[in-house]
């Protein structure tokens, strides 16, 4: 099976942990009309990584890099979740039973339901497991 359509490019941006840094990133994206579907911030000792799913990852990469930010792509998958109790459990259980480790995850709940974005240790296995158990994954083709 071709897993490629399900592997989504998250942009990861290095940011110092100080006032105004997120605003600078968000402003840059706004300037080029890039929409953020979901994002999260991970922080360590004095710095962090802003992780975002945007509607046009390549454009976001060019814009942010041009603005002096350190940016990289990270492969993630985005699983649709039932937006009711037990929705997260279903997905986590399938991956857990299959021995796939979730390194980090964040979620959003929009008009078309809830979506869980996952960074896992074995992307291919995760896609295969979720599809096999009736899960639905966002396709990279919905992004520009």
């Amino acid at each position, binding site marked *: 099976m071709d897993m490629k359509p399900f592997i989504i490019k998250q942009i990861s941006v*290095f940011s*110092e942990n100080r006032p105004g840094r997120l605003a600078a990133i968000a402003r840059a994206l706004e300037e080029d009309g890039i929409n953020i579907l979901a994002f999260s911030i991970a922080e360590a000792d004095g710095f962090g990584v802003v992780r975002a799913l945007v509607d046009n990852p390549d454009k976001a990469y060019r814009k942010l890099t041009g603005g*002096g930010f350190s940016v990289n792509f990270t492969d993630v998958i985005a699983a649709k979740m039932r937006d009711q109790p037990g929705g997260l459990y279903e997905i986590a259980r399938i991956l857990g039973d299959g021995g796939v480790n979730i390194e980090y995850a964040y979620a959003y709940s929009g008009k078309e339901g809830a979506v869980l974005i996952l960074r896992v240790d074995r992307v291919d296995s995760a896609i295969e497991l979720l599809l096999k158990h009736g899960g639905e994954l966002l396709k990279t083709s919905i992004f520009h």
Partner: protein
Amino acid sequence: MPLSKVVRIHTTSGTTGKPTVVAYTRGDLNNWSDLIARNLTMVGLTEGDVFQNMVNYGMFTGGLGFHYGAEKVGMTVIPSATGNTKRQIEMIQDFGVTAIHCTPSYALHLAEAAEEMNAHFDTLKTGMFGAEPWSDAMRKELENKLGVTAYDSYGLSELYGPGVAFECKERNGLHIWHDCYLVEIIDPVTGETLEEGERGELVVTPIVKEAMPMVRYRTGDITMMMEDGCLCGRGNRIGRITGRSDDMLVIRGINVFPSQIEHVLLQLPEVGNQFMVYVDRIGHLDEMTIEVEMTREHFSGELHDLAQVQKRVAKALRDALELRTSVRLVEPGSLPRFEGKAKRVIDRRGGI
């Protein structure tokens, strides 16, 4: 002097990646321990004293230097070295220690730790503090908290180590031994010799050193010659050190040149070559924070990779400086660029 006649080597911080090496003949070691013994005797210590030497042994000259000088006096020497403050406090109590040697900032840390443990130093009477500049306000605080009379000790590895100049019981200037060292004070910019009472850079010509003779060695330390007439009757006195003529920092008694940091960063591709150094005093101990820029190419997008880079930089700095530092990763291009003289060090410690 052939290496076969050199019986010991110590090192001190150099301005580049490599430490400065200092060598000693048997005669040098004898002269050096004589100097220390004189200083200890000058402040009234005898074979009846028990001495705890709370400085780094090893390549740093403070440990072995004081150790052999104190043995020469006949004192009972406890080579406790650094670290484990609780154990240091217990040893002072258990061995009935009467005299200690350490950096002034560590002494204050020790005093506070003792307060927290509700430990008392009933036997302690003499404290000898050196390796970093300290003030008279600090002297009062140390004397109150530790119950000692506090003496300033001055030296540098190139001139053997500690023991070059030392306060007598008057504690009004440090006597620099005229039978071992010729002293001048110069204007660090023009090189012109200054008069008694004028502050400038201390320049020393050692006259008894064998393995590493030197002429007019510029110490980088700022002080002045004081007029003769100390009540103790001894000659040559210099004032307490008030600063440096170069950009050397003293962090927890260890000398650090900003160029050493630069040298370390040049060898790490994950970070840029620009840096800023912030020095603070937290709980009486010096803390050095170094900001470095992450390079774009080495940003993988993963947080744990960043943490790895941070660790690697901290380790490389610790290996080079022999000092624990905090490393902060900042965004590329965010640190100040300097045209002309760089001002990369922000020392927020104030006087001690």
